[in-house]
């Protein structure tokens, strides 16, 4: 494949990733999804960097991407802590729960509640329990039905 075509394709992929991430971050209200969208944008840029790096034959771009990945990993950890904390405060993962920093006397941005969850919780076949039942509170489920 000729380098120009490779570059064009890679840039297209990067742009698509970036735009998906952008749309995601602007439209989704779930904090984790928003964070994922941000990661998507970051990776789109990383792809672009790698493509240009290949095109120019300069390893610097790829080295930079490795660093970006590393930093993004750390950043993901920190961001998830924030998300967890935010959830602990409000019990919701909705970004629109956090709008107290608006100008005084402005009405709260009216948003519609989340659509009613009419999904049928599937019952999954599971193996019969074996071994010792772990001690703890049975009423608290360790997993949530949905996020």
């Amino acid at each position, binding site marked *: 494949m000729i380098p120009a075509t490779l570059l064009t394709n890679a840039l297209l992929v990067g742009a698509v990733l970036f735009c998906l991430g*952008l749309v995601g*971050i*602007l*439209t989704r*209200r779930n904090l984790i999804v928003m964070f994922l969208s941000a990661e998507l944008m970051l990776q789109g840029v990383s792809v672009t960097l790698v493509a240009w790096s290949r095109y120019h034959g300069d390893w610097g771009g790829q080295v930079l991407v490795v660093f970006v990945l590393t930093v993004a990993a750390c950043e993901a950890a920190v961001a998830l802590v924030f998300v967890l904390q935010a959830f602990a405060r409000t019990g919701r993962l909705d*970004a*629109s729960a*956090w*709008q*107290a*920093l*608006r*100008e005084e006397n*402005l009405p709260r*941005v009216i948003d519609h509640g989340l659509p009613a969850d009419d999904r049928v919780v599937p019952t999954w076949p599971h193996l019969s329990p074996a071994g010792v039942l772990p001690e703890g509170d049975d009423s608290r489920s360790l997993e949530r039905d949905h996020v």
Partner: protein
Amino acid sequence: MQSSAANLLVLVPLLPLLPLLGAVCTVLLGRRLGPRAHIPAVAGIGAAAVVALLLLLGTATQVGAGHGDPPRPEPVEIISTLWQWATVGDARSGDLPATEAGVPIAPGTAVSGGTFSIPIALRLDPLTATLLMVITGVGLLVAIYSIGYMHDDPGYPRFFALVAIFVFSMSMLVAASNFLLVYVFWEAVGACSYLLIGFWYTKPEAARAAKKAFLVNRVGDFGLAIAVFLLWMTYGTLNFHDTRLADGTFVEGILGQTRIADEAGYVGGAVGTAICLLMLLAACGKSAQMPLHVWLPDAMEGPTPASALIHAATMVTAGIYLITRSAPLFMGCPGALTMVSIVGATTALVAALIATVQNDLKRVLAYSTISQLGYMFVALGTGTMLGFTAAIFHLVTHAFFKALLFLGAGSVMHAMGGVIDMRRFGGLRHVMPITAATFLIGACALAGVPPFAGFFSKDEVLASLHAKAHPDAHGSDHGEAGRQPPETGIDAGGVADRGVRSFRPASMTSRSSTLASRSTGTTDHAATTEKIGLDALDHPSTWRLLFWMSLLTAGLTAFYTFRAVFMTFTGPVRIPKEAGHHAHESPPVMTNPLLVLAALSALSGVVLFFTDALAHFLAATPSLNAPAVLATAVAHAFHPDIAIQGTLAAAIGIAVAAIGHLGRRSDSPQMERYLGPLGALFANKFYFDPIYAALIVKPLEALAMVTAFFDRAIVDGTVDAIGQVPLAWGSAIRRMQSGLVQRYALAGVVGVLAIVLALAWQLRP
């Protein structure tokens, strides 16, 4: 002699310092001292009085017996330069109008390289020493009196602090040896006056009177400021005394001995007359002469001791001091001098007429003060040695008897519970014998009853006028002096044989030749026999008119003074209900100053007149040692004819007052009912206040309203409108601050997109 002069040099700055120290202590410790807050101020003023006495005696020992006939002492002048206040180099760059007018800046000497410097210099000469003694002496007595008068007043410490500051300012005013310093302290005493008139500032009349006094004084102060500018332009210095600069240049002071001795040292003509008239305006403001006299009667809203000290005895004489000090300047401008007399005589007569129908005891005294100050102006305007010394003589005796009268009135007011309307009380001699007796002595002195002080000083004033009105009867001496060459002018009059004076008719032409020879070489203006403009007023017929006006004033003075005495102290005893339990003689702390002042009012005139001490002493003042003044000196004499006229006028006045008021109820119908329409004119003070209100106050108020409207509607409106713009923008844009993260992110995206598009547009191929 030398050590004595050195001692005086130390004492001069000490004198104003002591009251200032007293004032500072009163301000700092006043609240803590409480009812003893008078101690620092009284101690400071008392110490200053002692220093003033030392200075007076010290100066007196410096004044020699003099030589010639009449004896003329050598000028005595001690200058104490404390420090240089401000120095502006090269202040005279650019050409000067004064030199264009053909006037030498300093004949025979180099100008000080255009350096403008203001030395803080204090001077001591007979005039200053006399006034310092009066200021601190009367100030001390008034301060002691105030201990009794002001007790229990909530502003007790404030009052004493102000009195002490006033004594400081006034001492500095008369001791300053520089026109700029004089101006500074001219304003300072005005400020003290303002603060003391408005002492009871919660009382609207007092606040209004204080404002009026301050504003009317501004008119005069404006005159003084312009006069000082003109003096600087004309003479290149503002110092009174001669100075030698660090670089050895000699600068002739405006009233320094070099210039005074110099026949051609002073500017005549338009510039000189302008300076003198502006100074007269200043003096009119401070000394309450027409047309700026309107503030003084209202100033009686202040505490009575302040009225006695400031508005009767000392501050209002600042104008007299200024003109006496500037005598050599005035001598070159006979027209301005005559104006001084005309203003004085008119004021004296008008104020006396107004005083005849006043029913407020303090207002009678206030108009009397204006009238007596007019007397001093009349004497000053004669421009003779007799006139100047008579004015200061009258100033001194007036300070004593008018302070006495005011303090007596204060004592009455104190006893009557603040009532000062003479119609509401009477027969008080039974209630307050000491006050009545001392008041009577003061009244006799004011009315000019022989042998009280006022008689002699008034006699001198009238004599000085008479000499000008009838030059052939009195003025032989200056006629002879005038004929001598100017170089020997100082001694000439003395050498001249006085025995033959009656054989030499000194007619109008000889007076003109006096003027001509006196001003040889200055400008050809004064040398001409034909007098032009204002100078044409200097004519014996003018002086004859002024003499008769003054004599009429003397009669009126006697009338209104004794009208007040009879209304207040004779007749059936009547006491207003406001007096309560107060209606008794004042405490000794108040009556003792009255007794001292009564003694001074009774005796000072006799002593000073017959020993001729004051006149001889004052003649050693450099300003009065000018050849032009010296040439007019005549031998000290008692003028029986004038004394008889003056006494007759006083006797008639007292007799009329006795017919109208002696022994009657003071609220019974008064003599003014015979005056007809004139009574209304006098009672309304010649309608000065309504005229000023219509001509000056109302137009200014209208202008103020217009400017206020302009300010509020247009200036403020514009500012407010400009202020509304960001607010409007803000209220539009603030909706974007929604607090939603995603909207912010959207704004960021839109922004980046805009930048990218703009870049793309820029970089399009």
